[in-house]
């Protein structure tokens, strides 16, 4: 369990990262916490030629609360965001959900943007970005662009990031005052979610976002529903998610949790 040989670049400027990505493209991987990447390297699942470490770049390690959005740099660790004093006020859903991301030890190394780049179907952060309608800030030597959450995640561990692009930051719209709720079921605390759900009040009703079931987090907006109308809506959504069996849970079990937890969370948000 030793990685294949690779070159290691500890970037001292963002331009250095962008140039490295421009030159190496898909042969380069950005190291930003390494809580998934290092394991994949050691198991030789991933064999990049170059590893570009961005964690010394102070300009990527900022959290900014400005103009109705919270922008989190590529180098911000999950533990740092969780300890940010403004988190509960500006992003109450993240305050609820971040403790479910891995364990204390992995959060102290893992970054917010690194988890988004990895795009594991069961990860909490992609789900939160979709639930809140955030944006991913991409940058290459060619251009800068922003991609909405719903367009960023295109498949299992696949994103809209081009091979020469760095995820420079991610932004979440600041809290609008509505209620939100989060719940996750995993085999043990800190495990990959079997089902994770977030409900967020919207001006017209509620948005339910589900992770761990489909290849990407899936969101659905509904007006204020209750009773059998809500049951039917949740049942339809549950069936549309194409749940799968694995060693930890069955597809049916996942659909059951979407129906039950979805109803509970929507009840909490709309009460």
């Amino acid at each position: 369990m030793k990685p294949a040989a690779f070159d290691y670049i500890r970037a001292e400027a963002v331009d250095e990262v962008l140039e490295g990505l421009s030159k190496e493209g898909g042969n380069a991987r950005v190291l930003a916490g390494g809580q998934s990447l290092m394991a994949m390297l050691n198991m030789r699942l991933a064999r990049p030629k170059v590893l570009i470490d961005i964690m010394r770049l102070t300009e990527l390690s900022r959290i900014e609360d400005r103009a109705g959005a919270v922008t989190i740099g590529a180098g911000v660790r999950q533990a740092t965001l969780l300890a940010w004093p403004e988190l509960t006020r500006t992003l109450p859903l993240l305050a609820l959900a971040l403790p479910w991301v891995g364990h204390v030890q992995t959060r102290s190394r893992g970054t917010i943007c690194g988890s988004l780049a990895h795009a594991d179907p069961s990860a909490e952060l992609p789900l939160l970005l979709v639930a809140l309608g955030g944006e991913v800030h991409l940058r290459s030597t060619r251009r800068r662009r922003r991609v909405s959450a719903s367009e960023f995640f295109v498949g299992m561990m696949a994103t809209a990031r081009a091979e020469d692009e760095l995820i420079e930051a991610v932004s979440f719209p600041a809290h609008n005052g509505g209620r939100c709720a989060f719940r996750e079921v995993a085999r043990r605390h800190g495990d990959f979610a079997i089902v994770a759900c977030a409900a967020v009040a919207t001006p017209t009703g509620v948005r339910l976002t589900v992770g761990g079931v489909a290849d990407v987090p899936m969101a659905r907006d509904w007006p204020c529903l209750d009773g059998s109308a809500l049951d039917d809506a949740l049942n339809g959504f549950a069936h549309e998610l194409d749940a799968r069996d694995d060693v930890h849970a069955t597809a049916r079990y996942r659909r059951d949790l979407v129906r039950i937890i979805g109803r509970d969370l929507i009840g909490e948000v709309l009460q």
Partner: protein
Amino acid sequence: MAQPAARSASVDVERRPWVGRSIERVEDAALLTGRGRFIDDLGTPPGTLHAAILRSPHAHADIVSIDAEAARRAPDVAAVLTGEQVKAMTSSLVVGVKAPVECWPIATERVRYVGEPVAVVVATDRARAEDAADLIDVNYQPRAAVIDPLAALAADAPVLHDGFPGNLASDRSFSYGNPEQAFAEAAHRFSIDIRYPRNSCTPIETYGVIASYEAAEDAFDVLANFQGPFSIHTVISRALKVPGNRLRLRTPPDSGGSFGVKQGVFPYIVLIGAASRAAGRPVKWIEDRLEHLTASVSATNRATKLSAAVAADGRVLALDWDQVEDCGAHLRAPEPATLYRMHGNLTGAYDIRHVRVRNRVVVTNKTPTGLNRGFGGPQVYFALERLMQRIAIGLDLDPLEVIRRNLVPAGAFPYRTATGALLDSGNYQEAIAKAVEQGKLAELMARREEARAQGSLYGIGFTAVVEPSVSNMGYITTVLTAAERRKAGPKNGAQATATVALDPVGGVTVHVASVPQGQGHRTVLSQVVADVFGLKPQDVRVNTEIDTAKDAWSIASGNYASRFAAAVAGSAKLAAERIAHRLARVAASQLNVEPVDIVFAGGFVVSKRNPENRVAFSRVAALGHWSPGSLPDDAGQTIRETVFWTPPELTAPDDEDRINSSLCHGFIFDFCGVEVDRTTFETRIDRYVTMHDCGTILHPAMVNGQIRGGFAQALGAALYEEYAYAADGSFLTGTFADYLLPTTTEVPEPQIIHMETPSPFTPLGAKGVGEGNCMSTPVCIANAVADALGLEDVTLPLVPAKLAGLTRGPEPEPPAGRSSAKPAREGDRRLHGEGSASVNAAPDQVWAMLLDVTTLQAVIPGCQRVDKVSDTHFRADVTLGIGPVTGRYRADAQLFDLDPPNAVTLRGKAEGALGFGDAEGRITLAPDGKGGTKLHYSYDAAIGGKVASIGGRLLDGATRVIIGQFFAALAHQAGGAPAGGFSLFALLRRLANLFGGRQ
């Protein structure tokens, strides 16, 4: 009981003994400050090379060829060994039953489980060895695999070894008493079918071997974190083709957990020994976690049918066991010991005089099994104690009352069981009464009523078990017939050894061959020996490393079968007493008293009658070194004493196959309350009470540590852990993200209650206590969950989705209009799917497109090079990937069953370093009556090998993504081509989306 220390100006001759006190562990200072000395921390001899092992991705396949030339030429590679080379240097490992079957530490000609070694690469460091292993090209011809032990017995099952016809390695039937009559006459008959899963106690430290072949003397020097039993030493030396005295086997000072598992390092000692011989240099190998979970060793899984003849009052009159033991792909020593370790104890804690047994041992395409904490106990008690609950339900009796009515009577010890065990001591009725009272069972029952009244799923479970310890080295011969045993020669006993030595200034050193892995043997031995010599534990230094070239050892040496407290600590006591007896003679002549008047206390050798008359222990102890001439003529030497101790009760199986399989028998009574969550079906342990009678307790905190540790591992077995295999033999739990261990947040604190009924058969009265909860807890929790959910059958692990599936009613239907044609996973772990689409073009136009050679070449994802074998057969080198997980594969695609322009089958497979995959799709075209085509497709696909082992959670999704990539590429190709009047691009894009792929 111990007396409080009396205050005295002179020596306190009535001092409270150290044994029985929870003194600080001498091991802890090093272990808790990172100063433990584990095998990977120790230096290696100069020039040591490092090994990496290439392993089979297939559960069952013929090795057609191995091309290792590129690996041999790779930088810094010293040697590459395949099965052929290893076979030339070694002999087959001994197989535990009489059969024409060989067992090698590396695959020869055929692989039989995922993870079986196929080649060993030796290089200057591990990373380079792994680089070179990637260059080895193995051509496999897959065979059908069999995973399930009962399926392995089917007439048409694939056969693993010709020498085990029908995959049956052993089939023995036994009868004790008159079970036929008991079943015929009994008022009731109850039966239960059990499938006990595969799991393992996974140590933190994996296997490690440093082997050195000394050509000048044709001898091997091996350092390995092997745990014993040292009967395996003979297996290793025989395999390495040297006499036992030319295999020096040593163990490192510390070993990071074993729980039986490190017995299984021995095939690697042979393999790395052979590698050292081939390379001409010492070779080191440290197993990594993926190797460990995939291919180290596991407990056996077992299919059991257990029936009981039961009287109207719930008394069990007879048992009928039918056990089918699954030992995996090879029957490695000491298997089938897991099956026979419990043979004397098949009646558990109960007084049942009639027993029938059929024991079959089968081989399947899974990792070979070996020692594991509990060793046969969990499998036996899961069946027996589930059946006891079922009897209670069937007769409408309280489950605890059924247990009570069947217990071995209190005055009956030592009690000979029907199958031959001699239960040494106990009072099971009193133990249960104490546990019920101190564990507040009445309160728990009230809690259940209250919880159920509030709609909760709450249940209570009970278990009573006998915990055997100190194995009889002869029990395994019960697998042979009496005639075969006579021919093979006697095997019995449990030879323990301990050496006590005095240095020239009176320091005491103890050496034992117990090979601890963190248990605290050194602490307990210092207590035991300090008590004999009247010293403090810190005056006694204990060494537990073993070196078979220099130390006293026997085949029974090692750390297994919970033998330390009963056998090893007792032997140390005997050795110390022998020296003390001689020192007493020396001191008696110096103090001018009779030897019987001598006691050892407070660092002095003292006259009991006149404590002022004394001499320092160190002075008496040193005499043997400095002035042997001063010793009384008949005292003998006082410097060093080695004791070998074996209990006479451990006799060989008798001609009626009765076997006293273990020396000591502790008693455990557990009960627990659990609540199953109505939403998630997670099991929460509300309260767990565990009563232990392990005889005399030597160190209470360590005994409780053993109970807590066993409980945690048993909780894992009950709720989380399973070495899961797909039907094709793919291993699905190769990381700790999929093989789930309970962590500190999942393990509640059990309430531990003790009772001490000393064993009359051991020097200290102690019995083993290391494995009991691994036997009692899984079934206790299962009984509670069955009670909570009203289930007749429960299977471990109690995965929430499984419990939900057993309990919940039918699922709400999907809304109208929602297609049910979704990819589905079936029992064989292949992913099936189908769908259809309409195309606005005639079938022959679509057909031409689908069969276009350039199209087909272009649609193989990540294709780098295509070799056209024929018009319908292609080979290609491809790179496939999911996100960052990419690998190179050799792909082979063929078109079959061409029926132009109606149908075609596309079959492809790929194999590479990350695993293998295959897929088959059938596409049919039919006119839709409006000038267009109705296209229907169906496919099935599977991925196996390394990717399945470490990405089981994402496997189905990944399979669909790869298929999606194929169709996306097809769509892209079609979109670029002129396609007279219709857009195949649009069609294929839709197909790709159905498969989950993206443009």
